[in-house]
């Protein structure tokens, strides 16, 4: 069903913050693209270009203390929920100072206590049951937290997505799942994932509400997500939202996306979420200047921090698997006095 935004738009001060985070997300992405070409990024680089509104609009719709499970294109969510640009950049570069100390890469990090952000794993769909479990745990502890996560149009084909919502629906958990339909899963168009026109109709398999929204309109993303988060928080069970958008680059840097019709890119370029929001906001000169300054210093500082940070020392590889490191640390006799 189409949602008629139940909540009015946030105050201008908040909207300015949303705009800032949209810009920050894109600025960091652009810098990361350059760093990738310089061979400095560890692992793949998955751009959120053109999809930033989904991450930012949804992140701002949550309350402090809510849990969120971002996927690799949701660096915007990670930033808006309180992780620093330094954390994002240093994790891309696999540095010792990064949230994973170089053990994992990309957007794979989080800090449940500080930001409520959960690190995804690469196996798509798996975050859905995990976030359901966090919502369950919070409820058992008497907390009114909402858990929110994202799946792509491709990940929505996984059994994990399904079983996670089966579990969440019968438990009536405060879980919001956003299907970020950017029309492609790597090179595979959504038509090869499902016969449905609206993936939101998958909600009917669980008897839960499903909504469709414009993923390139940050305020619509915010209002629909806000309504769903409120409903979930009030005990109305899990909510499914499909936001439509287009992935504006290849799957990752190495992919030129030649399989995407040029017209499609043209069409969606016009819908760029940041340009659209700008037209709505009409920033004053002062607003613009202070924002650009804050942006530049934040990004420069993050890149500088990441680039100048040390790489992790080799010994770290054998630490942190278990609470007790001795379980894993083992020196074979031939290595002892070697």
């Amino acid at each position: 069903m189409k949602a008629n935004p139940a909540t009015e738009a946030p105050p201008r001060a908040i909207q300015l913050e949303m705009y800032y985070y949209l810009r920050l997300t894109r600025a960091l992405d652009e810098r990361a693209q350059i760093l990738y070409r310089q061979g400095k990024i560890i692992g793949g680089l998955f751009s959120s270009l053109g999809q930033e509104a989904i991450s930012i609009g949804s992140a701002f719709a949550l309350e402090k203390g809510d849990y969120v499970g971002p996927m690799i294109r949701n660096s915007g969510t990670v930033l808006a929920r309180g992780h620093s640009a330094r954390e994002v950049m240093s994790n891309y570069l696999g540095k010792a100072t990064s949230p994973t100390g170089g053990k994992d890469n990309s957007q794979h990090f989080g800090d449940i206590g500080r930001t409520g952000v959960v690190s995804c794993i690469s196996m798509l769909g798996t975050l859905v049951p995990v976030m359901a479990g966090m919502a369950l745990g919070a409820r058992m502890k008497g907390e009114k937290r909402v858990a929110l996560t994202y799946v792509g149009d491709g990940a929505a084909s996984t059994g994990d997505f399904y079983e996670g919502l089966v579990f969440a629906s019968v438990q009536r958990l405060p879980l919001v799942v956003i299907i970020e339909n950017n029309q492609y899963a790597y090179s595979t168009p959504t038509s090869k994932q499902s016969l449905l026109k609206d993936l939101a109709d998958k909600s009917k398999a669980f008897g839960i509400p499903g909504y469709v929204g414009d993923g390139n309109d940050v305020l619509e993303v915010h209002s629909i997500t806000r309504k769903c988060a409120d409903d979930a928080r009030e005990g109305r069970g899990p909510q499914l939202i499909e936001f439509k958008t287009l992935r504006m680059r290849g799957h990752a840097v190495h992919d030129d996306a030649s399989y995407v019709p040029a017209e499609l890119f043209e069409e969606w370029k016009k819908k760029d979420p940041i340009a659209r929001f700008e037209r709505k906001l009409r920033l004053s000169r002062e607003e613009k200047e202070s924002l650009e300054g804050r942006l530049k210093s934040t990004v420069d500082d993050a890149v500088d921090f990441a680039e100048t940070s040390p790489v992790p020392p080799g010994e770290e590889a054998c630490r942190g698997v278990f609470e007790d490191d001795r379980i894993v640390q083992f020196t074979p006799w031939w290595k002892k006095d070697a």
Partner: protein
Amino acid sequence: MPELTFLQAISRGLWEEMEADKSVFLMGEDIGRYGGAFKVTEGFLDRFGPERVLETPLAEEGFVGAAIGAAYVGLRPVVEFQFIDFIACAFDPIVNFACTSRYRWGQAVPVTFRGPWGGATKAGPFHSRNVEMWFAHAPGIKVVAPSTPSDAKGLIKACIRDNDPCLFLEHKALYRRIKEEVPDHSPPIPIGKARIVREGSGLTMVTYGLMVHRCLEALGQLQDLSVELIDLRTIYPLDRGALVESVKKTSKIMVVHEDTRTGGVAGEIAAIVNEEAFEDLDGPVIRVTSPDTPVPSAPSLEEAFLPSVRDIVDAARKLAAY
């Protein structure tokens, strides 16, 4: 002191942990009013309520993922697989999500996976599987497999209190077969420590689970040999110290397991003994295991498949005479 079956000991261990710690709760299929397929959680629903004895839909990947999420926020879920074989359906979230969280981003996952395990019950290929080595070979999870009621009670407690993922394997052929006096509120037994079932100086016999009892039977026919019988109790991490120490004393070692041969823990032990006690070895490390086949259903086939008392005796004599 109450005399408990293997099953009752596990049940008591769970009960005492739930009494002691509100963050401990159970998840699984039919574990509530029905008390679970083997009745391990009978009576738990009435005492602890449906929130802490949480019945799940038939969706292993779903409720395993949910258990991981609950553990992320500080709870201590204990997940029952109706038969441990069905853990294959949740392999991905366990080896990739639960096992890597602490390593990748420092997030602890205090979750325990448990279920009826192993063969010798005529249950066929899908209700008899030995899953231990799949997980012993997936860094980030501990694998525990007790053979007595007191060990079962002490080790399930240790798993629940452990701050890392644990897989607790309950040999269902032992559930109602063995009894032992086990004190109430007994302490946890440390994970990773083997148990010397019987001391000996002539050869070391290492095993775990149901095979501990077959080995004891075999010892009855090996009175003339001084056999040191070791129950691993934990498959990961292995008690290297106990194994090496015993071999240094006996200079001969054989490993018996119900699990299939290739990639079974016997190979791992052979390598450990080579690495740390090669000079002490007066004979080859011997493996008495099942063959590399699915677990057949018919009793005549399953008995041919499993290591027999006869096999254990023959192998021990050959090794002793080596």
